[in-house]
């Protein structure tokens, strides 16, 4: 039992106190780009989670064999291999999702959540702990995407879960294909599904997450892009050095 408690904490920290999107401010590009509808957001979240869990397991298993000097390229190769596998699976089984995600599917490779977790967690912890950490972070990422996509789809298009049928088609013939929201469907706030709406909804969601964090006595989420950036060690950008120093203090 002694071992179980920390594991359980590794799982919950991913979607609460250390939510990758809303607390650590990582992986902002896919969050903004794929949250136009709930179905694509879930597809993105699940694909990224699979890559995250697999790469965490592989990197943690190999942590004693990878020389620390070439670790970043080694991690990138591992992550890219899993992304390629997921990409092929999605193309074969859920072609509609492949079309919806487009270039963002191969771009999971440069999603900083995955490289960040490899560097910050998987390279230092056991295989089981890394797998659980990956699962927690994956759920956290998916949840944040889901929240954003819900707001953007309901108010921006007047639908909810539209296109989920294509995702569920993996499990056989499903008739369910989302809801249409009566009034909003005829008067959608189109700007919310366009690029500016993405930034706006993310900003407001971040403000709400900050409010919740403050009420729990935790600090607000700041853009520590560089402090958690896996390249921070090799990067001599003065601004970076400052943020790293601040984070250390």
């Amino acid at each position, binding site marked *: 039992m002694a071992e179980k408690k920390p594991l359980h904490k590794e799982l919950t920290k991913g979607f609460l106190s250390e939510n990758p999107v809303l607390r650590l*401010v990582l992986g*902002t*590009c*896919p969050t*903004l*780009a794929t949250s136009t509808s709930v179905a694509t957001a879930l597809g993105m979240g699940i694909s990224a989670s699979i890559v995250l869990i697999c790469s965490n397991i592989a990197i943690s298993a190999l942590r004693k064999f990878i020389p620390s000097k070439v670790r*970043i*390229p080694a991690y*990138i*190769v591992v992550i*890219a*291999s899993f*992304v*390629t596998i997921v*990409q*092929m699976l999605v193309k074969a089984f859920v072609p509609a999702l492949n079309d919806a995600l*487009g*270039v963002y599917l*191969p*771009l999971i*490779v*440069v*999603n*900083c959540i995955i*490289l960040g977790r490899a560097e910050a967690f998987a390279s230092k912890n056991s295989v089981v702990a890394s797998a659980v950490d990956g699962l927690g972070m994956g759920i956290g990422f998916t949840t944040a995407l889901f929240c954003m996509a819900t707001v953007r789809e309901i108010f921006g298009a007047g639908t909810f879960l539209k296109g989920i049928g294509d995702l569920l088609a993996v499990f056989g013939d499903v008739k369910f294909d989302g809801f249409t929201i009566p009034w909003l469907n005829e008067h959608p706030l189109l*700007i919310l599904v*366009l*690029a*500016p*709406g*993405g*930034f*706006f909804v*993310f*900003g*407001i969601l*971040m*403000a709400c997450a*900050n*409010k919740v964090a403050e009420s729990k006595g935790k600090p*607000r*989420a*700041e*853009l520590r*892009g*560089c402090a958690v*950036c*896996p*390249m921070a060690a*090799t*990067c*001599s*950008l*003065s*601004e*970076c050095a400052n943020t790293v120093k601040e984070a250390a203090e």
Partner: protein
Amino acid sequence: MKWFFSIIMTAILTNNYVLCKFLGICPFLGVSKKTNTAVGMSAAVIFVMVLATITTYPINLLLVKCDLEYLQTIVFILVIAALVQFVEIILKKYIPALYNSLGIYLPLITTNCAVLGVVLLNIQNGSGFAESVINSFGAGLGFMLAMVMFSGVRERLEGNDIPKFLQGLPITLVAASLTSVSFLGFTGVVEGIFG
């Protein structure tokens, strides 16, 4: 000439990589506090984007010829990572002046999704060599425009009285949203000018 400007203007204004396609958001939010750093970072991005496109184009032809297209992601990210390292070493040794102004940004660019994104999008669109290079250059210029504009906006934000609820990152994102609205206004402009 018309063709050239049409591609460049589309990449800068209507298809801006940062504000319309959401690629390269991390540096956009992280390195845009000061205009100087924003310019340096984007110059490095333009440089690497063009170089990466030039290098990956023949490699892609080879992959297609051998029926290995599924290896694109893994090959391109490795080529870009190696290229960035290589450029850094060469600049350090032979052109120290350029290294001092651009070199410090280079390690950051390996994991920048805008660079891999532009390479993959060029291939997805089936662009030829010249078109790909011009498009990458335009995408880099668009990145620079967005970064410089946004760094100006952020400098103005610093001294303002912002509600506590929105302080910090939320107001930055809302400001980015407004900057993005201004780019929405360019929809159709390129088609209007170049037919």
